[in-house]
């Protein structure tokens, strides 16, 4: 009985934390993607990709065989993008 409950807790945490991670990643991606001819590509592409980024994070962190490693990779990607945001906001 405790196993499904523990898995459910893990699922909830993976899904919600992945939302936060995906939000940081798409916001950070606006800093390095090329803006294109109309100066909107760097905004539109991350916006549209948000659901796919989220599902990639959620599936990876919940379904990976080595979950600790999955969390480390996801956190590292998010931190890199958070640095991009910090750089963009401060400049």
């Amino acid at each position, binding site marked *: 009985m405790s196993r499904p409950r523990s*898995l459910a807790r893990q699922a909830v945490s993976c899904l919600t934390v992945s939302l936060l991670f995906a939000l940081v990643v798409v916001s950070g991606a606006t800093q390095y993607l090329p803006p294109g001819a*109309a100066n*909107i590509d760097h*905004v539109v592409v991350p916006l549209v990709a948000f659901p796919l980024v*989220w599902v990639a994070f959620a599936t990876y962190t919940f*379904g990976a065989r080595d979950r600790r490693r999955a969390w480390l990779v996801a956190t590292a990607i998010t931190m890199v993008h958070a640095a991009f945001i910090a750089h963009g*906001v401060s400049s």
Partner: protein
Amino acid sequence: MSPPPVSPRKRLYLLHRWIGLVVGSLGALVLFSGTLAIFAAELREWSVREPLRPPAIDAPGFDLDRIHRSVVEDLDPPLHHHVDFVQDAGGLLQVTALNPETGTGVAVDFDPATLETIERHEGPASEFHPADPRDALVDFVIDLHVFLSIPGALGLLTTGMVGLGLLISLVSGFVAHSPTWAKMKRAPRTRRSRLWFGDWHTLVGTWTLPFALVLATTGAFFSMSSIVLRPAISMSAFHGDPNALVQALIATPVPPPGPGQASLDPMLRDALSRNERAQLRRVQLRDWGTPEARATLTLETEHWTGDTRHVLTYDGHEGQILRDHPYLGSTPSFGGRVLHLVDELHFGTLLGLPTKLLWFLSGLALCGVASAGLLVFVSRQRDPSALVTRVMRGLAVATSVGLPVAVVLGTAGWALACTTGAWPPATAVRVGFFAGLAFMGVVGIRWALRPALLGATIASGIALCTMPLWALLANGGPSAVMRAETGTMLVDVAWWIAGLGMVACAGRAMARRRARAATHRGPRPASST
């Protein structure tokens, strides 16, 4: 000793099951209303039977400048700066002169055939064109799809979560079910209902997977973009200014300051010469009579393979074209094309009527996949009288074959409200729909699964056949028959086909069950005399 770790596939299977329970119930409402909303324009024509009016630009003696003068010549100068001309397909020509600072102004409705004034309103803009109560039916369908009938940002957030839930349900379901070519070819086994639901879920779910992925991704994007993504992206890319993001996407051109005022007719002729067979939909005059005057013309080319919209902005002094607008941004770009494609993929307008029909049928199939998933869960429960099983059974019946009953009760409430005026139609359609859902839920809770499904299917089929009557009632009774256009009659036929189809399916299921029962009983022993 700790228990062995759960394999990734098993973990994703459990995730698919948990998320599927939510997506199968809430998501079914979003999917079903979205499927109906594909034909929102046709449903609106069906529910509001007004004669289609000709395009105003085809009227003899049509002169945009003369219409403009006739509206603004007696008005105070602040009302000259902000003027809109609008004619939706088949509608009146509506001209509005508004003071954006006070929100008040003048609106004049013209008959597009004769260009005579039909009605003139003065006062707050919100009172210019009160909504037709008969619009409440289609407005409810769209509200249910976009907001799940939950007001404001919470509604958008909920449908956004449903979209994300559908997305991860698809990915986890793909891993859990591991579809193979053999599974994709196998007809659902009819031996037991549980097997049939499971096989149908896997078979149709696999075939509709690309469509479902597109819908879930684009739907989640549309719901989340304004409430979650826009503030986040504005903060990182536009120093926290959401208006700067909107300006970058819309990119309104501002003409160089100049004297004088251009005529509107040459602009219209130029726009029409650039887009043959297009119809004028809207003219927006902004800062008219000031150095930054500009006119934006919107035209639409209708075709069965898809309507095309053209937006052109002209300098208000010289009448020179400033920009032939792409879908987004100041010039054609990759991002603009991506967002245009997202729009066409979500609404099924990619290739016009063929893709709308394909999207409609795939949407219904996807509703069936979600319902079949719920039914698999219900039929696997060991104790059919347990509270959880009964509640899930009620949800499964209400959000599968019970949905048409809810639609018909909502429509009946809307029609009665339009006829009697006793309640606001928007409230009546909402109350009718959710009362229908609750009724079907109670049927599912109180009855066993098979009789509940059969009963709900028959009730839905019969109810759907009454849909044309409710539309007639809302539009003034039998006289509305004379106002029916071809599209309206096709919608009536579609309701009858759906209703009779559901009754036929239920009859077939009952016949199959009787045949199976007769086989199990075996031949009657010969009587010994």
